[in-house]
């Protein structure tokens, strides 16, 4: 059969909630275009109820994910990197279309993203050595501080880097045992929605990562005000929106990471890794 005779098989992009791929509860979609304004696909336009459902799924997954051994979490995240590696061509094409990059440059971005995922996966059983400590105290006690995950973290993915940027904000949140509700880049959500397919086939328990596409402001506002979200990463919010969200997040003392200039290609450091941890200190009596 001639190549041109084949009907094109278009992909229906969907949300990723609790390990499933539903359409938006609202039934809405919006048009996603490439950098030259050509139509790429329809992405679901998630509503605040989808955001609420995502938080419920993330909360449900938190116990199991934070309770898993660091070794196990690392293995699962490494598995995600393996799956990403196998889908390099797909992500290269999506990133090239979304960000207007040449194929070679997009391939470099995808490789950097896979490498970054691996780099963060390695941190799972090492973060306690960096963020924890054995504290000298004036008494017959072992005094140990260890990092614990904050809980459910809402992540507003960066608008300027649809894939490398997304991986750079998502991986550090979940590697330490948090669960995440991600709002994908508003104008370029397709790489994020495809990442969901990778996550779903990588032994990552359903609900650990939930991905929403839609208007960042519409989704971020209920997430920032949500009483059951423990932290919010405002990377993808503009300055004005970020101020509003910080105000909304203050009510239940959410941990907030403010947006700032970021060079996604640079060495990420441990900043994002340590931003969503709480310190637990235990006093343990010394045997005499």
């Amino acid at each position: 059969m001639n190549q041109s005779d084949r009907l094109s098989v278009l992909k229906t992009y969907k949300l990723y909630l609790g390990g499933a791929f539903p359409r938006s509860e609202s039934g809405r979609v919006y048009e996603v275009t490439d950098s030259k304004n050509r139509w790429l696909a329809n992405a679901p336009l998630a509503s605040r109820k989808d955001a609420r459902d995502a938080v419920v799924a993330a909360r449900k997954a938190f116990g199991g994910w934070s309770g898993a051994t660091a070794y196990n979490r690392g293995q699962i995240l490494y598995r995600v990197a393996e799956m990403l590696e196998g889908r390099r061509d797909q992500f290269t094409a999506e990133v090239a279309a979304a960000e207007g990059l040449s194929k070679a440059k997009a391939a470099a971005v995808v490789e950097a993203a896979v490498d970054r995922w691996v780099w963060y996966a390695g941190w799972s059983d090492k973060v306690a050595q960096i963020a924890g400590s054995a504290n000298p105290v004036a008494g017959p006690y072992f005094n140990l501080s260890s990092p614990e995950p904050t809980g459910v973290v809402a992540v507003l993915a960066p608008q300027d880097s649809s894939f490398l940027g997304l991986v750079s904000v998502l991986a550090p949140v979940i590697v330490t045992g948090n669960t995440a509700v991600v709002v994908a880049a508003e104008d370029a959500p397709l790489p994020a929605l495809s990442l969901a397919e990778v996550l779903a086939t990588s032994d990552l328990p359903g609900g650990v990562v939930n991905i929403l596409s839609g208007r960042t402001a519409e989704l971020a506002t209920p997430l920032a005000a949500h009483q059951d979200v423990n932290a919010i990463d405002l990377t993808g919010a503009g300055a004005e929106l970020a101020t509003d969200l910080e105000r909304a997040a203050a009510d239940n003392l959410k941990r907030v990471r403010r947006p700032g200039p970021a060079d996604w290609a640079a060495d990420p450091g441990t900043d994002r890794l340590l931003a969503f941890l709480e310190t637990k200190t235990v006093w343990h009596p010394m045997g005499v």
Partner: protein
Amino acid sequence: MPITVPAYGKEAAGRLASMADMTADDGALRRFLHGLPGVDAVGLQARAATLGTRSIKTTAKAYAIDLAISMIDLTTLEGADTPGKVRALCAKALLPDPTDRTAPRVAAVCVYPDMVATAKEALGGSGIQVASVATAFPAGRVALPVKLADTRDAVAAGADEIDMVIDRGAFLSGRYMAVFEEIKAVKEACVRAGGTSQSETGGGSAAHLKVIFETGELQTYDNVRRASWLAMLAGADFIKTSTGKVAVNATPPVTLLMLEAVRDFHESTGVQVGVKPAGGIRTTKDAVKYLVMVNETLGERWLTADWFRFGASSLLNDLLMQRQKLSTGRYSGPDYVTVD
């Protein structure tokens, strides 16, 4: 249509007596129950599904949430129940949301018979009823004298309502008269010492009787309709879907079917009987669907805690979270309600 009388009122017995020829003997009862029209299963499910699609928002939702809270039989039926847990549950019944005193109280607290005294003491004169399961709940597989003793014991301890289970074995094997007589006997046992079985006020001298069918074990919709009529003819004040102890609990179609049976019974005798779906109702959305069903099938007269109840434990937390969302505009979370 005859004038409406409550099932616990003193006139109800007379109305039931008018149906006496149907319950005169085993053959007559069987002929009557098997003469009831068959249930259109597809139609019933479609009707229940349609009623579940109503959109209830803003002020109507706020009203529905408060109504649902006031209809809850807050339940703890675990082998591991302790007096402390029952007291904690009673405290929650009295003040469901400590951060918002405008939240209504629940209708009743539902416990095992040995916890009735504890619950009664904790609730005092608050007006919240104490319901006790009895008759060897949940299986009901003991001899009649034991069931009656179980019931009398709960009533003596102060229970305002008795939730009995029917003998599903007898019902499924067609011994309808045995089930009928058993319900009548338990109803007699609900009378407090020195009282009569029919009280004028509805509180006072006899505990109200709720009859549990365990619809998950009755196999067919036809059986649910028969069981509903059987229990109402025997004098049930409430009919209740399930114990919450088997895989299939209250479902919208089964509850709708029971509501329709109550409607038909009311139309032919004038006796008003209550309905209580129990088990598996966990979200506000589900609860509102049930309220829509009640309103559409039986009308406003049944939309009070006197005639419709939810048997639930986790439902209350979801209702409270939704209530907080409506009053503050922020989604609430499980950190802001009690852990039961």
